């Protein structure tokens, strides 16, 4: 029969495990970043990952942004028309997209795409001894595999979010003008009136943090995968789930930081 203290012990073990895990991830990320200022830097690896991150993720991010902007315009119209507040739709669309949906949805989409790809690639390298082989060939695996990916994540996601912001607003604009009867000129004027530099910068800063988290989770789970195909599969799932949850958690923290009064 379970004693009351057993439950306390289980909670304690779980807490210690979570803290140990968080510490290991933080140390892993710090080690990866520390190699940015210690040569050599693997520019070719960085460019390859950056291209994969920024360019090949464009279609999925673009489609997500367009339809999200369009849906916000439609939903806002449904609600705001009850209070004769249709003129606020342009502002709602642009602020939602630039402050929240652009970075968060791009982050979640890229976490599914790049986080999984990184975890699978590095995990496969782990279970086939390729990471050990790097160590025997005068190459620090953290510097070769992790550092370029972290940097690529930080730099690539803000670029994707710029595209997502523009296309998200464009999606709202299209629905508002083609379906809801807004004048294109007044819609754009309202959009530009309400948007501030702070909104854009905050959204891009969020994107940089999310890009780092995606790369960190992909690399960490791949690097620490164990076993064969099952281990790589678990690493891939873990990377996507962890990155998605962290994106939503950090979104709240950064929103508090940037916008709470």
């Amino acid at each position, binding site marked *: 029969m379970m004693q009351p203290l057993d439950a306390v012990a289980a909670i304690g073990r779980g807490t210690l495990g979570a803290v140990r895990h968080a510490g290991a991830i933080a140390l892993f990320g710090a080690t990866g970043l520390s190699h940015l200022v210690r040569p*050599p830097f693997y520019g070719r690896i960085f460019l390859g990952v950056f291209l994969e991150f920024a360019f090949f993720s464009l279609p999925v991010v673009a489609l997500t942004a367009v339809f999200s902007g369009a849906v916000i315009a439609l939903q806002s119209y449904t609600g705001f028309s009850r209070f004769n507040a249709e003129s606020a739709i342009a502002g709602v669309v642009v602020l939602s997209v630039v402050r929240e949906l652009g970075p968060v949805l791009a982050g979640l989409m890229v976490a599914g795409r790049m986080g999984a790809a990184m975890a699978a*690639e590095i995990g496969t*390298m782990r279970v*086939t*001894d*390729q990471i*050990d*082989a790097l*160590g*025997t*060939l*005068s*190459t*620090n695996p953290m510097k070769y595999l992790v550092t370029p990916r972290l940097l690529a994540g930080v730099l690539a996601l803000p670029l994707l979010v710029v595209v997502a912001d523009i296309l998200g607003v464009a999606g709202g604009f299209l629905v508002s003008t083609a379906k809801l009867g807004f004048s294109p000129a007044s819609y754009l004027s309202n959009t530009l009136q309400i948007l501030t530099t702070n909104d854009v910068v905050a959204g891009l800063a969020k994107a940089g943090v999310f890009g780092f988290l995606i790369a960190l989770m992909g690399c960490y789970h791949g690097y620490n995968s164990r076993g064969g195909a099952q281990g790589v599969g678990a690493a891939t799932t873990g990377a996507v789930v962890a990155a998605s949850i962290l994106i939503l958690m950090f979104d709240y923290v950064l929103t508090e930081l940037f916008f709470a009064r």
Partner: protein
Amino acid sequence: MTEPKIKIRGLSKAFGDKQVLDGIDLDVMPGTSTVVIGGSGSGKSVLLKCILGLIEPDSGSIEVDGQDILGLPRQARERVNAGIGMLFQAGALFDSLPVWENVAFGLLAQQKSTRAEARSRAGEVLAQVGLDPSVGDLSPAELSGGMQKRVGLARAIAAQPGILFFDEPTTGLDPIMGAVIDGLIVDCVKRLGSTAIAITHDMASATRIGDRAAMLFRGRLVWQGEAAALLDSGNPMVDQFTHGRRDGPIQMELRR
């Protein structure tokens, strides 16, 4: 008296409650090849990984050229590793890179040559292991198992290391290809004048590659001697192992 190239004393390593290496003492003399035999899970790969710094032992010392390499700072450790080439059991070729870049990886990493020079050197080394330099443009996934082993060997010897490690070099190959790989290993070791350690359970391979041999059982070295004496060592454990007898002092445990 000549000092050993690699000198191991009291090396121990446990994973949880499983003692994988238990007080290993081993000397490997310069320019010689030592073969370590033993059953699966006897600690052979862990021994090599400890020397390479991929696994940190619990206790003991490992000296290379008289220098204790355990606990060396990272850069000093990397300098030691730069003098070691390793052929991994499954090749461990980088599948994101073409064959030539795999072969020249160490040269490029050590910044010993430009990419053009490394490309040319990779072609030379591929020829040394019996592969056409045009193979350099292929991806590792396009190669057969035997070709992958040759490329792995080419990568191990490309930087002309003073020490070579071979982890199960003939596993998964047919007997003829196994003999070919063994021949290439012996040629490479002789040409470079390197000191080699090979781990294997292939007795034909062990006698072809090794000058000296040692047997690991439950983390301990239970026998050391000339490789030529492997099949007739007089040690009951070695005899049982090398002749593949079911009965003898070694009893297979179903679960440890």
